[in-house]
């Protein structure tokens, strides 16, 4: 709401863009109908103003006497009656208003400034657009899905809130030649985003920028230059399967297929795996799964359901030196580790957890070493082979029910 004090007549008004040329109705302010109603006109109509500026407006009554005179008129702004000291009678039919230090508009369709007759009836209205010009958009980031399209996102200027409808337009052109193009599919991945679906060139840089425009001005971002091949992402790996590793109670095997969309292009894929216990929200991430399509998770809890996801980074495509962009995670796939066959504390025929009656110090150390190696080298096949054989022997020697499967790696 504007402050209730008189201020200098420093009005910076600008008429808004015209509405539709064809409107089909009689308007407020038309000659009175047979009922004898009177009307008025507010000036200025629909001004645009900077936050903190002032406005001087008038309400002039039309109609044959007897009718409302300026003496009985009053103003409301967004439904609130304005203090009488802000108004002044200019002449018999005109009431003036002075508003200072205007706040930003309460709604995008404009603040409703209304002139009322003494009995409260509405004589005329005008909508005020009070806000700020846009600031420079920044932080443009773009990515291409399988080199077929380009999606870009940006941040709308330092403060974002202009109190006015601000239009953002993503522009792009080939760096060395070509005309400016305008992106047309907006809000695809959030409010400040745009999608270019086709007709993109490879091996040649694009220049991309964002223009912001509202009733009070415009601003343009810095230009981002990129090659489509440097910002490629792809689909998540399909056909992710998670399965047990024989009877090994602390391991799960994860297999997947490389994303088919890029299979015809030369690139070195990187993968990441993440997994979590069923009732946890904390993911553990396995990094640096380079160019493989399988991995074994170890150090897991027995008898526990795990959710697993995989994602892919198609870096180095067509010789690009850039890092590439990670795909989305695949749909979660679940599997459970086998329950531990060793009885818990205090139950049944007791066996020390992790120990064996005939284990000597050498075996204990070997077990500890391999356990440590397994925890810190998830996808090291050699250690798995040795460890698996040793675990299988341990289980067999304790007469467990599970049969140990031959190593298939």
């Amino acid at each position, binding site marked *: 709401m504007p402050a209730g004090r008189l201020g200098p007549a420093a009005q910076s008004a600008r008429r808004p863009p015209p509405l*539709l040329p*064809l409107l*089909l*109705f009689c308007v407020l302010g038309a000659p009175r109908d047979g009922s004898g109603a009177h009307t008025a006109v507010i000036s200025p109509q629909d001004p645009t103003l900077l936050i903190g500026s002032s406005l001087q407006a008038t309400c002039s009554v039309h109609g044959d006497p007897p009718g409302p005179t300026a003496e009985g008129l009053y103003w*409301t702004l967004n*439904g609130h009656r304005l203090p009488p000291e802000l108004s002044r009678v200019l002449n018999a039919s005109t009431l003036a208003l002075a508003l200072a230090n205007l706040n930003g508009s309460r709604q995008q369709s*404009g603040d*409703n400034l209304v002139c009322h007759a003494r009995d409260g009836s*509405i004589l005329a209205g005008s*909508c005020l657009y009070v806000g700020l010009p846009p600031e420079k958009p920044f932080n443009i980031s773009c990515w291409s899905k399988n080199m077929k399209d380009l999606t870009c996102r940006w941040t709308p200027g330092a403060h974002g809130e202009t109190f006015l409808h601000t239009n953002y337009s993503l522009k792009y052109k080939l760096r060395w030649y070509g005309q400016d193009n305008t992106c047309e599919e907006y809000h695809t991945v959030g409010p400040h985003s745009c999608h270019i679906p086709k007709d993109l060139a490879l091996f040649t840089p694009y220049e991309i920028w964002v223009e912001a425009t509202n009733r009070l001005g415009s601003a343009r971002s810095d230009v981002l230059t990129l090659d489509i091949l440097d910002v490629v992402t792809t689909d998540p790996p399909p056909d992710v399967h998670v399965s047990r590793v024989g009877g090994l109670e602390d391991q799960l095997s994860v297999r997947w297929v490389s994303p088919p969309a890029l299979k015809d292009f030369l690139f070195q894929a990187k993968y990441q795996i993440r997994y979590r216990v069923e009732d946890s929200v904390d993911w553990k991430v396995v990094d640096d799964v380079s160019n493989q399509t399988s991995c074994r998770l170890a150090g897991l809890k027995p008898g526990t359901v795990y959710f697993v996801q995989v994602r892919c980074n198609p870096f180095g495509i067509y010789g690009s030196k850039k890092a590439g962009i990670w795909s989305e995670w695949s749909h979660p796939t679940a599997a459970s580790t086998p329950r531990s066959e060793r009885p818990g504390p205090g139950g049944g025929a007791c066996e020390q957890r992790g120990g064996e009656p005939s284990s000597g110090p050498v075996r204990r150390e070997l077990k500890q070493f391999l356990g440590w190696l397994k925890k810190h080298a998830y996808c090291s096949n050699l250690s798995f082979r040795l460890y698996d054989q040793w675990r299988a022997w341990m289980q067999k020697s304790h007469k467990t029910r599970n049969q140990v499967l031959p190593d298939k790696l």
Partner: protein
Amino acid sequence: MSRREGSLENPQADSSVSSLPLLEAKIHQTHSLARLLTKYAEQLLQEYVQHQGDPFGLPGFSPPRMPVVGLSAPAPGHEGLPAPERLQLDARALAALPPLLDVVRRLQAELNPRAPRLLRRLEDAARQARALSAAVEAVLAALGAEPRGPGPEPAAATAAATAAGVFPAKVLGLRVCSLYHEWVSRTEADLGQLVPRGPS
């Protein structure tokens, strides 16, 4: 002899008798549709005033009743008219609403571009008014009544006074949404008087 027995045992019976259950079903369905659209029209009004800002949503807000080309509110004597005549007026008004709602939607697309739900409701309202008008016409035809006849030229084809500003455009949109609500609820009431009472 029940109506059903009459239609089974005597295929030569008057077709109006055998089609009576069909007419009742048609009236019932159209009445249900009108009832549903009355609810939607209320929601549209609420959504509309919310986006125009106060005083539009305040109790007691009473803007000037601006005349709309090609459509007026139901007349005070509407309820006293015979049922077919009432339905004809309902159908005519509902047929006149879609182009007006389209204009309001285009205006609101400029005034409230970030109000997708409002814009969608206005678009839906135009479609719904068309559907209800056609359904009422079908009831009139089944009743053997005269069709509604040509209405006024679609509003989009005639240029009248241009808008004096944003505030009048807001008021006019409110007027159109109010007329839409008045006419669908009027149609619901008129059809309600034709819906048979008791088990069918």
